[in-house]
């Protein structure tokens, strides 16, 4: 599971090569960057912006693209109105800009093809981003691994990669999608939903949960209530 640390993690200059709207508030940013170490699905990068007076701001963003070695990564960034860094991406960043980043980072919330499945993925809102990397990697390298994505958003307009996920659910025989809308008469993820997911997938070998703390905490507790071994459950939360 553990790779020896390959040495210092350098800041690198990445070139922003494409920007594309994804939802009302989320855009896709494609960067050309040559990492000096292999990437794993589920990892993130640190981004560092520098003002003319030398002031710097850093934030972490999960990588949405799979580790396909094509020399680019995709970040999906939600333009928060008061976000010092996400607001810059939303309002200022343009194709051709250079941005400092370093990575890939993180050795816990990662999935490798040899880790196998069944793979239970649960994402709340933009917490789906590192799960997308895993799904894309799985489809390319281990499509026979059973996987189910339980994806909870407030309304249909917030579904990230909606078309891609629908196509995967239609075309990939071992992938199932459970979409949950919490508004407009919907409800938060509850015990019945978890029971349905576990029934459709079978006992998960690995579960990865990502989203805000209330979502991740609730789903983690529901999985434990349903008898899932806590050692099989990995979590990643934002808001930090």
């Amino acid at each position: 599971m553990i790779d020896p640390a390959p040495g210092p993690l350098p800041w690198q200059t990445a070139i922003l090569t494409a920007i594309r709207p994804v939802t009302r508030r989320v855009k896709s940013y494609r960067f050309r960057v040559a990492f000096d170490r292999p990437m794993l699905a589920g990892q993130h990068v640190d981004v560092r912006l520098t003002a003319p007076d030398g002031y710097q701001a850093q934030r972490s963003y999960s990588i949405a693209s799979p580790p396909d070695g094509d020399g680019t990564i995709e970040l999906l960034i939600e333009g928060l109105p008061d976000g010092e860094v996400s607001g810059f991406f939303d309002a200022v960043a343009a194709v051709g800009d250079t941005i400092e980043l370093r990575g890939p980072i993180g050795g816990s919330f990662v999935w490798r093809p040899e880790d196998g499945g069944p793979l239970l993925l649960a994402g709340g809102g933009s917490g789906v981003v590192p799960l997308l990397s895993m799904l894309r990697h799985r489809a390319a390298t281990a499509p026979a691994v059973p996987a189910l994505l339980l994806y909870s958003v407030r309304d249909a307009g917030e579904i990230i990669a909606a078309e891609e996920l629908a196509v995967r659910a239609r075309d990939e025989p071992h992938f199932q999608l459970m979409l949950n809308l919490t508004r407009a008469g919907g409800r938060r993820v509850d015990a019945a939903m978890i029971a349905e997911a576990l029934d459709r997938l079978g006992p998960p070998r690995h579960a990865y949960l990502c989203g805000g703390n209330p979502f991740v905490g609730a789903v983690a507790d529901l999985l434990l209530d349903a008898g899932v071994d806590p050692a099989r459950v990995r979590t990643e939360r934002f808001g930090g």
Partner: protein
Amino acid sequence: MSTRGFTGRKPPEATRERLPPGQYLTEDFPVLQIGPNPRIDLATWSFTLREGSRPLKSWSWDAFNALPRTRWGGDIHCVTKWSKFDTAWEGVRFDDLLADAGIAAPSAFLLAEGYDDYTTNVPVADLTGGKGMVATHYDGAPIPVDHGGPARLLVPHLYFWKSAKWVKGLRFTQRDEGGFWELRGYHMYGDPWREQRFTGD
């Protein structure tokens, strides 16, 4: 090299002085952990000092709460970039654990071990002299499980991943052995003021 079009929101001088490099101030208390909250029963909770696999001293919840208590207030810094100012904790200093056990630290390093099987390494010198405690209270109340209750390590001068949640013991080691994150590319020491986030920083 500055980033085209970025001016940012530089915090006021008084805030900047308290923020280590690369950090920003948050008013929230974000929750970050590798897995689910463990389910801990205070009736069977225990805290154990070990040398390698050999137990040196163990306390039940009641015995632990009978130990001398100390308050600490100040700023904490998470490697995920947020810092939180003026946090208030209460618990049992590492020094008082050793005193109650009637021992001196048998080695210069240890691994904090959590009920969730999380581990992290801390030099003994970073816990002695009042620098570290096992905290049971935050902001005047028992620490909520999301923040590591019933008891968590508190080593506030290092990045907060060193302050292991749901701690069940400290294991002295002969050499400085990496814990969960340190074996996954994070810094062995983790001083926020030297921005020691990752190996080689």
